[in-house]
């Protein structure tokens, strides 16, 4: 047997020297509190997200103080949600993949490819429904290929999905001939996902909410979700408990691809285009949101709610900066600082008995 196994499993962070077991007594506090009941039964585990909520509240306060007229308007909230929607859908898939012990660098590229494929004139001839189906099929297909390379080709996820990133962007460029493909007027029903509002919210926000809700249910209430934690936490144990780890892993990447396909629909609706440039660097943003949300990069632990909170923090930061008319350089510096503060707050909330 391996000498590390014991300690390996106990680590909460990847490589943080202090997440080593000897810290267990302090860092694991949250896990052992009453919150445990919900966390272990897959609940929303409030305590564990306290730091994120506090960070969001602080940002809101900053917004209220600096730009009271524009920040706290309903149209601004709608705008924040609409901005978060596309990458939010991707973040849901990413959460599954990371909890399952993997990583997916190809999300942005897959979304781009799906948007391009769905907006070729050939596809567009069949109308918006087929376009949507096309985007989803392309996304899921690419995800399956990722999963296949990783599960059955035994490639390291980082490398397999990096290869997919590169290849999917290339294919998207080739298909689109490097042009931005407009959604044709006949298919404007697709664009209406972004322009039509129901109870004040654009349809795409409902799609986002639906994906989050379904993702949460699958992760917390189904055998598939339960097995995802096992597969990510200890794949060998999962295998010996009778879980088909390979097939499961395959499905996880397909799921992430599916989310990319849905995201492609949203981005087509928002920008009225398909383009090989869509989703640039989404992978970093989505991974960052997932990790800030408390999911372990090593797998086996994490929540969808945390990821979405993490994403909202990023979206609100950008929104606040633009509302305040700050330039990009300052935005970047402040963003770096805020990430650090959010994480330290989060740690504190985990350490402090609730």
């Amino acid at each position, binding site marked *: 047997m391996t000498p590390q196994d014991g300690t390996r499993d106990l680590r909460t962070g990847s490589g943080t020297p202090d997440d080593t077991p000897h810290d267990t007594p302090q860092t694991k506090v949250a896990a052992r509190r009453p919150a445990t009941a919900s966390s272990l039964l897959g609940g929303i585990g409030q305590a564990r997200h306290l730091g994120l909520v506090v960070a969001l509240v602080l940002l809101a306060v900053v917004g209220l103080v600096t*730009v009271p*007229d*524009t920040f706290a*308007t309903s*149209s*601004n909230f709608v*705008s924040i949600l*609409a*901005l978060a929607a596309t990458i939010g859908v991707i973040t849901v898939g990413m959460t599954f993949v990371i909890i399952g012990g993997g990583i997916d660098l190809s999300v942005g590229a897959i979304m781009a490819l799906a948007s391009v494929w769905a907006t070729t004139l050939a596809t567009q001839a069949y109308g918006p429904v087929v376009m949507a189906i096309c985007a989803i099929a392309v996304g899921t297909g690419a995800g399956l290929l990722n999963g296949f390379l990783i599960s059955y080709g035994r490639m390291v996820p980082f490398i397999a999905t990096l290869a997919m990133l590169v290849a999917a962007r290339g294919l998207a*460029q080739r298909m689109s*001939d*490097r*042009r*931005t493909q*407009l959604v044709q007027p006949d298919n404007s029903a697709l*664009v209406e996902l*972004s*322009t039509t509002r129901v109870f004040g919210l*654009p349809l795409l926000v409902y799609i986002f909410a639906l994906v989050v809700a379904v993702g949460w249910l699958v992760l917390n209430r189904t055998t598939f979700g339960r097995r995802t934690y096992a597969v990510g936490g200890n794949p060998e144990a999962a295998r010996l408990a009778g879980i088909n780890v390979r097939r499961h892993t395959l499905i996880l990447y397909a799921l992430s691809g599916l989310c990319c396909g849905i995201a492609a629909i949203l*981005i087509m609706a*928002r*920008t*009225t*285009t398909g*383009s*090989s*440039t*869509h*989703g*640039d660097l989404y992978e970093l943003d989505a991974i960052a949101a997932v990790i800030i949300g408390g999911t372990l990069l090593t797998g086996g632990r994490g929540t969808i709610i945390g990821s979405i909170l993490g994403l909202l923090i990023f979206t609100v930061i*950008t*929104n606040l900066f*633009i*509302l305040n*008319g700050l*330039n*990009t350089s300052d935005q970047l510096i402040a963003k770096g600082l805020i990430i650090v503060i959010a994480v330290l707050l989060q740690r504190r909330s985990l350490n402090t008995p609730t």
Partner: protein
Amino acid sequence: TSNEPAAAPSSAAPQATTAGTDNDQPGEKVVIGFSAPAADHGWIAAIAKNAEAQAKQYSDVEFKPVEPTNDINQQISAVESLIQAKVNALVILPNDGEQLNQVARRATDAGIPVINLDRVFPDKLSYRTWIGGDNYGMGVAAGHFIGDRLKQAGVSNPVILEIQGIATLPLTQDRSKGFADALKTYGFSVTAQQDAKFTVESGTQVASNLLQAHKKIDAIWNHDDDQGIGVLAAIKEAGRDEFFMVGGAGSANAMRDIQADSGVLKATVTYSPTMASSAIKLARLIAQGKGMSDLVEQQVPQSITLASETITKDNAAQYLPLGFES
């Protein structure tokens, strides 16, 4: 120049006049190397395509493009490989003129004439000829269009927004400066400025936040028509129409919108990728030791700046054939 709209056939890759001048008769065989940033953007894609299409026109030109890249380090290596291959002329659109200056200088020193396209090298010893658009002039043109229109409408203290392309490019800063200078002549200034990344998606994101920040807007100048598609989508999504917008570069799509006059886009200021076709022509002439037949000079001039023209509803039909597809 050969860029007269009238002379150009349809489509985004305007070709040179094929008949007429002696210069187009096959001459000495030359190899032209070409290096540009990665084609992840309609304008840049048009540059690469125009260059290639132009080269194909000539039986005496062997076109040697290298992998486009957005990494300086790689573009340097790419140009180095062209120098090693001893091409007869080099057409370079650098990611950053200053950063590629040294390697261009090396090419020149090795006796290879460099035709500098668009983003300029700081050192004149690094290139034989520069051809590019007038970035400052673009800003000026946009500023005048907006200034005029607002003056005529009698608006005072207008809210004018500017959406830049990539903020770290010198050309962006030139454009902004021209814009600000022109607005100043009307007593106006830019209310808020944000940069997008020349992509549709970042255009949407930046615009939708800006629209939240400003409840009433009078005019927007968006530097780039490619990202403009995203900006327009965000405007439509927000259901706003109290202002007008001016684009940049001159994509066919923008021109069609302007012509249709159905939305907020009222004009665009050109920065035409046809300059790549011209650059190839110039490279061939220089390599073959010829001059430009419309000029008296025996040699190709040292620099050629394209004028930035303002396209409005009135002249859109005339310019449309030159527009590049996003």
